[in-house]
């Protein structure tokens, strides 16, 4: 049943599970747990559609690079699935086997722990079950890059796809316009005793449940943990702890442009760093996408590009040729974009301001920071993919000066993939949740979503979020007593 908390504030006296946040992770958890016969409440802060009032509650201050937090999330039922593009790429075994650079530990679980949930995650995302992840292009020369493999979801809009189930699943209460504003923790029992929620007129109530799961996205999950005074006084959240730390994005960098040799296929090409590359260069992972500009597709290649190849091949003097190339200021046949891994870095973090939002919750400050290791990853991928592109006889790459030069100033944009702020680790010394997604030093508080990512790899997060959510459902169902 879907209820509007603005007008209906009747919760059950006790739920088995309280899921906070109605995005892909929250909806999956709520439906699956209710399907197992548990009494579940799903509290979504937004309504059934986008409203500026709800969206404004995402507004955060940015002191580092701008992560466009408010614009990149969707704060209503269905969450950010309401505007995602649908690209699905799975994690690789090496994402789990190898720790990230920078000294922090990586995932405390084995790849197989989430890989076993891949078929079900594919079903949820309406991906073909009988098809493996596919490359759209052939491989590039050498061992450094492979043709990237992925599948495209329609894309699945969770609130639409699961509208009937959200309304009709027995044991599930869905409340919209039901904003979490505090988490009440009992330090004697080590249990969360209530989630305090508010409507848009600041009328508050409490949800009482045996277990609580935060599934609000990487900024909001951390924000709620940091906002709770009782979690702080109970010793769960420390001032210098990891809650909010290691905010990661996938790095979207304009590497430069490229020209294709006459006769080369003008389809988009996507390349992905191989494990060999990562071992050799000790960088993060990344995708480099070569996209032909529409104008070239429509009108064909310019004479200037044809001349460039001709002049490059001819036997003119060295200095003349260098001068010719240096002056060849051509926009090229296409551009090279990226989706590159950012390593976890404590300085890149969510913290809270003293200023509060409309509902009285302290606002978030997002300090997104790129480390020198991240810049090295970007530059190395740019230079090496350019070389392999030439080696393969496809054409030539013109890198932007910030990529091949000595500058450490780079224009890096986000991909709207927020990760890492409640990272999963084996011990509380370097993370927030344990291998079962439970917040350290609590007995009944869990976190779902990409905030638990120990490292982000270079795959789109939605599908792994679902794999981890399905794993959490299994764990909670097995380990919760009626």
């Amino acid at each position, binding site marked *: 049943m879907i209820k509007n908390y603005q007008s209906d504030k009747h919760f059950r006296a006790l739920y088995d599970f309280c899921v906070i946040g109605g995005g892909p992770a929250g909806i999956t958890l709520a439906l699956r747990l209710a399907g197992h016969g548990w009494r579940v409440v799903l509290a979504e802060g937004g309504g059934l559609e986008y409203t500026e009032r709800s969206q404004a509650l995402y507004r955060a201050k940015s002191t580092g690079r701008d992560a466009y937090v408010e614009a990149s999330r969707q704060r209503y039922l269905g969450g950010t699935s309401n505007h995602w593009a649908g690209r699905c790429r799975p994690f690789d075994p090496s994402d789990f086997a190898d720790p990230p650079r920078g000294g922090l530990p990586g995932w405390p679980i084995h790849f197989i722990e989430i890989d076993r949930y891949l078929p079900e995650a594919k079903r949820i995302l309406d991906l073909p079950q009988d098809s493996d992840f596919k490359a759209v292009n052939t491989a590039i020369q050498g061992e450094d890059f492979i043709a990237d493999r992925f599948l495209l979801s329609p894309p699945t809009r969770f609130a639409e796809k699961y509208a009937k189930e959200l309304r009709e699943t027995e044991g599930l209460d869905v409340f919209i316009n039901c904003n979490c504003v505090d988490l009440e923790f009992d330090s004697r029992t080590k249990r969360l005793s209530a989630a305090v929620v508010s409507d848009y007129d600041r009328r508050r109530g409490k949800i009482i449940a045996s277990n609580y799961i935060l599934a609000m996205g990487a900024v909001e999950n951390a924000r709620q943990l940091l906002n709770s005074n009782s979690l702080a006084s109970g010793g769960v959240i420390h001032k210098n702890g990891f809650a909010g730390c290691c905010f990661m994005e996938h790095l979207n960098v304009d590497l*430069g442009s490229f020209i294709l040799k006459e006769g080369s296929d003008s389809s988009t090409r996507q390349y992905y760093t191989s494990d060999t590359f990562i071992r050799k260069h000790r960088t993060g992972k990344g995708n480099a996408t070569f996209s032909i500009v529409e104008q070239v597709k429509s009108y064909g290649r310019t004479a200037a590009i044809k001349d460039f190849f001709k002049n490059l091949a001819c036997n003119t003097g*060295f*200095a003349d040729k260098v001068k010719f190339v240096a002056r060849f200021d051509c926009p090229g046949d296409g551009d090279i974009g990226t989706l590159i891994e950012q390593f976890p870095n404590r300085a890149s973090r969510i913290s809270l301001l003293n200023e509060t939002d409309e509902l009285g919750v302290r606002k978030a400050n997002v300090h997104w920071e790129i480390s020198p290791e991240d810049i090295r990853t970007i530059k190395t991928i740019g230079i090496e993919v350019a070389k392999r592109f030439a080696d393969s006889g496809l054409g030539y790459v*013109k890198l*932007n000066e910030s990529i091949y030069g000595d500058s450490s100033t780079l224009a890096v944009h986000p991909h709207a993939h927020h990760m890492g702020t409640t990272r999963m680790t084996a011990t509380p010394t370097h993370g927030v949740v344990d291998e079962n997604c439970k917040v350290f030093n609590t007995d009944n508080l869990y976190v779902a979503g990409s905030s638990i990512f120990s490292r982000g790899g270079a795959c789109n997060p939605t599908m792994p979020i679902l794999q981890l959510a399905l794993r959490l459902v299994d764990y909670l169902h097995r380990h919760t007593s009626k």
Partner: protein
Amino acid sequence: MNTQGKAVKLAGRRRFLKACGLAGIGAIVCSVTGAFRKVPGAEADFIVISGWVLPSRHFAHPADD
């Protein structure tokens, strides 16, 4: 030309290009274009001119042929 001769010639060309990239003609070229450099951390067979990542074989000095 025998194999050894070709190898010597190739090595000479690479030395020449490397020298160009680090100082010598490279400095002259840079004064013209401000844009010639060896690929950072790369093997010797690629150079970058104004961002273009190009195989160095295209820039063999005529006298080296």
